[in-house]
């Protein structure tokens, strides 16, 4: 067994060794991120069998919790950690085909992976804030790294909102600390019944805003379309597949594990619905495909938050499973969309829907990839999205929210409307043919194949998601495995 703490240590080490390697040879830095993510992946995979019921505890500084900082990895964390490494690995392979990056980019990228992995593995609240800041600051850099006007503007806006959001998150942590005297998640969760209601409420509002910025909840998500649109395509992938998924993890961990249910369930419930509807409607009128995808991403995040709040209302392991399925579908589907969109435009960064005319017909492989992403996102059968969407609807039905179900189906129709418009546009008339390397295509093919293969054979993914959901649901198990039955 290799200690998962190495994931963090090694990534950090490799990230800061990049400048040194750069001094050795200018060709070395691009190979560091794939190496790092691959090793991380290996470490995590070797740990799979050690994570049983409850969480696996990795202590630092030789002190038992709740005193020192520690990692707490249960199946849910492990799933997200692996997801982050897989997508990170695929993306870093993708970067190999591009030469324009300077070495600082790879550093930022690795720090981003580090932040995300840290958030999903840590068992300490303040530690999660630190990792969140690492994640965010590196994301600002990554978004702005496109270095054209739009990228910089997007990066700056993201920074303004993100900074305020994470500050409020910190304030929430402090408020909890004041009434419990501890920063250990499991410990706070254990002490939760003794915290006065007003403190719970106030801190959960602060968390709601802090995390809400990250998971793109409605009034807090205004930065998201701008950042997605401004960033380079690969960075948009990273934003939607890694960064926002980390936000979802954080929301689930804090609200479900620590608070034992969303404290402001109804608020989040309605906010999430609003997010979904507003985003899909905004996407409907979009002529810029990239921004349309951004809105769609925001909408999907709204859906995820919605399903979490439904879980908080009804409490059913199936609902959580659904959330995980949705997250996986979105991570792979939207990632594929952003990547293939970039190639379809020939990396000209001109995403106007009219200019995409015929691009899919001229580049059938790219057209196929883009179409796969779209079809999975809108939940067509034989793609993985179908199962996540069906599970979503089943969970909502089980929660007995039939009006919500009807509303969602209506909005899905809106979603289909703009996506079908893009698909149809891609395959009409004659478009420009683009040369595209083997590496990007094979990376995208991996994305697409995973969507199709698990669409046809969803059984294993169900199982994994179910286990992860169950471990997230077993709150007392989590607490007792960290605190040792205290």
């Amino acid at each position, binding site marked *: 067994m290799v200690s998962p703490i190495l994931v963090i240590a090694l990534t950090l080490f490799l990230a800061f060794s990049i400048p040194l390697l750069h001094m050795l040879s200018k060709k070395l830095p691009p190979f560091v991120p794939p190496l790092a993510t691959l090793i991380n992946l290996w470490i995590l995979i070797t740990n799979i069998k050690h994570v049983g019921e409850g969480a696996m505890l990795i202590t630092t500084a030789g002190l038992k919790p709740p005193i020192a900082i520690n990692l707490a990895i249960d199946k849910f964390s492990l799933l997200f950690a692996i997801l982050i490494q897989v997508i990170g690995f695929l993306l870093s392979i993708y970067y190999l085909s591009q030469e324009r990056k300077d070495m600082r980019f790879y550093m930022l990228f690795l720090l981003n992976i580090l932040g995300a992995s840290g958030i999903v593995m840590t068992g300490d609240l303040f530690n999660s804030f630190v990792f969140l800041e690492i994640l965010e600051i590196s994301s*600002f850099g990554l978004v702005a790294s496109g270095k054209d006007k739009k990228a910089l503007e997007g990066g700056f806006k993201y920074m303004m909102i993100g900074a305020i959001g994470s500050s409020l998150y910190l304030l929430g942590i402090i408020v909890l600390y004041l009434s419990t005297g501890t920063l250990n998640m499991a410990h706070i969760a254990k002490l939760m019944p003794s915290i006065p209601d007003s403190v719970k409420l106030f801190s959960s509002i602060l968390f709601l805003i802090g995390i809400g910025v990250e998971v793109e909840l409605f009034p807090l998500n205004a930065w998201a379309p701008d950042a997605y649109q401004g960033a380079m395509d690969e960075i948009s992938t990273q934003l939607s597949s890694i960064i926002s998924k980390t936000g979802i993890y954080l929301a689930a961990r804090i609200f479900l594990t620590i608070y034992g249910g969303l404290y402001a369930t109804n608020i989040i419930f309605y906010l999430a619905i609003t997010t979904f509807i507003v985003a899909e409607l905004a996407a409907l009128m979009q002529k810029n495909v990239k921004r349309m995808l951004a809105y769609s991403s925001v909408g999907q995040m709204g859906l995820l938050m919605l399903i979490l709040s439904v879980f908080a209302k009804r409490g059913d392991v199936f609902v959580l499973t659904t959330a995980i399925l949705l997250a996986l579908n979105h991570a792979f589907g939207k990632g594929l969309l952003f990547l293939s969109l970039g190639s379809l435009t020939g990396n000209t960064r001109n995403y106007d829907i009219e200019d995409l005319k015929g691009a899919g017909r001229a580049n059938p492989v790219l057209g196929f990839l883009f179409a796969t992403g779209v079809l999975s996102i809108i939940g067509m059968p034989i793609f993985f999205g179908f199962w996540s969407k069906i599970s979503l609807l089943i969970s909502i039905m089980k929660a007995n929210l039939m009006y919500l179900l009807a509303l969602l189906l209506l909005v899905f129709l809106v979603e289909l409307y703009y996506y079908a418009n893009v698909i149809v546009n891609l395959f009409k008339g004659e478009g420009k043919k683009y040369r595209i390397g083997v590496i990007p295509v094979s990376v995208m093919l991996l994305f697409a194949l995973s969507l199709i293969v698990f669409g046809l054979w969803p059984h294993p993914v169900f199982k994994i998601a179910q286990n992860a959901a169950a471990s997230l649901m077993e709150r007392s198990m989590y607490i007792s495995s960290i605190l040792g039955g205290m």
Partner: protein
Amino acid sequence: MDAGLIFYGSAIFLMVMGVFIAITGRHLIKILLGIDVFDTGLNLLIVSFGYINGGTAPIFSKYPNIFKNVVDPVPQALVLTAIVIGVAEMAMGLAIVMQIKEKFGTCNIAKLKELKW
């Protein structure tokens, strides 16, 4: 007047002022400063949470009775970290602002309207 109230009051004043600067300011640097002021206010708030009037430094000692009046060390530790993080954030922000000045030729946030709708 209670010392705690002064701390809290000034911290919240700083936070509100920071947000106010950020919302009303036009210049990018000014906005960054606003955010920084907000962060400072927040840090002050956190420290004052842990402060006890007339308390001593949280140092291990032989005399257990001193423990009763000790200032909570954790918020201070957190604030230290938060300050570092704030610095990093500010550095990243300034770097972006530099690039913006180069590309847009202006630091007026009202001119940053490439991305909308």
